[in-house]
């Protein structure tokens, strides 16, 4: 059972953020929202661990 990582964990954080913005470039708001939703689901599936996912949901909602 692993914990939710809330310390820096992405090498090249600026490169990642630029890629994230680039993925949204040219999309209108609803298309961007849809992209974000798909991204959340893809990442959630990658994580898999139900306990971690629950913790992530709480962390994002600041309900920790």
């Amino acid at each position: 059972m692993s914990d939710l990582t809330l310390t820096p964990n992405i090498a090249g954080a600026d490169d990642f953020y630029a890629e994230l913005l680039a993925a949204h470039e040219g999309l209108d708001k609803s298309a961007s929202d849809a992209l974000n939703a798909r991204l959340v689901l893809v990442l959630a599936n990658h994580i898999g661990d139900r306990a971690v996912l629950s913790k992530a949901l709480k962390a994002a909602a600041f309900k920790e």
Partner: protein
Amino acid sequence: MNKIFEVPLYAYERSPDQDASSPARHKVIVIGAGPIGLAAAIDLAQQGIEVVVLDDNDKVSFGSRAVCYAKRPLEILDRLGCGQPMVDKGVEWNLGKVFFDDRQVYDFNLLPEDGHQRPAFINLQQYYFEEYLVNRVRELQEAGAPIEIRGRNKVEAIGTHADHVKLEVETPEGSYTVEADWLIACDGAGSPVRSMLGLDFVGRVFEDNFLIADVIMDAGFPTERWFWFDPPFNRGQSALLHKQPDNVWRIDLQLGWDIDKEREKRPENVIPRLKAMLGEDVQFELEWVSIYTFQCRRMEKFRHGRVLFAGDAAHQVSPFGARGANSGLQDTDNLIWKLKLVMEGKAPESLLDSYDMERIHGADENILNSSRSTDFITPKSEMSRVLRDAVLDLSEQYEFARPLVNSGRLSVPCTYDGSPLNSADALLDGPARTRPGSPCLDAPLGDGFLLPKLGDKFILLTIDADAPDLIEEEGIEVTRLALSVKDDPTMELKRRYLGDNDSAVYLIRPDQHVAARRATFDETQFRHAIRRATGKE
């Protein structure tokens, strides 16, 4: 007021060139007596190369302008003999605070690494920097060095030829013609030289305006960098507060695109903005106000035959990250030793093309970083803003989001990976930070430091390794600097230059960048390395 930037520092004087029957020919003419032009001229003069600096003005820069100087440029200025006054006068800082909306979300400490002579950053008004450079020029002149600054000498026309450049120069007493073997254009982002030669300057315009104000106050704000995203006193925009010497504070307020610049600059409009930020009761005096917009762009090539561009004339970045003046100093640091070898016939002219290659690499790195900062500070789409605000909200509670907050990635020196002057790294598992192409890292050596022992010429640095005291390869002299890990009880020299190796030999360029390294001295290999580093292989 009698501020340094109001006094002519290099007043117009008639030059014998203006009365010459045929145009005088100089070795090098530098256009622009800003920080980069003066650094180029000092570097040349120190090495005995005759140089004339032409400037259309006669004073140092008006207002604080470039205020943040990083460690690497300070090390370059040490080599030019003016690092100490900068550090003595400048304000050192390591702490930063980030605010979002009405609250502080986190703070950071740049935590400078031990074992360096110079601090990570200092803040200093550009006019002091330029004054110290002019002082250094005067000192060199007194010592008989061939350097001259001509104030109120405005270049009106340029003729380029295969082996020289011809200039038409306008002065208060009429115009004259003068020639130079080489021309270095350091005439700023609006470079008239670039326009006169019809050269490109393409890139990205950012549709935004920033109000910068220098404010004198005896405020109790600590010596920290404070950055606000979307604060109550400047809704939807950003703000920056940074300390300079003499109780001068630099304030940057983002204003947005659609504004009336002249109106916004008036004190009656600036002062209420500053009061909203600083508090109604804080007493302050406005020293300087300006509004700027910016672009991120560069020339396609920095070398055009006998004309070499450096600093903002060659590349322009957004101010976030202090990459303007800091990168300009790295330009001339890279250029001058190459030019000297070419002028002395010790290296082929093609060596100058490596200036283009290496510094374009540096400019692209700076443009990339400063564009990303700008995109974070001024999101250009709704989703971009949603993501930015999410990062800021998360950063208050979770450490992971803090590296994503981008209010400027502060200037770090460029490593010339892939440069044709580098020899392949032959030090097995050597520290990555000192691989070929890197600027040498400073290290403590008992009472002193490593960097002051490097520079101006090629050095063979041996650490617990044998090598000849002098190698000469086709006119290039390489002098040995013999050190031992025992010279540094803190072991930084070992950590930074040897890693797990017992010995190392480094070939170090005159600009303190590593050209080649191996565990032990191998004459054939180092002769190849010297030839490569001087554009002969």
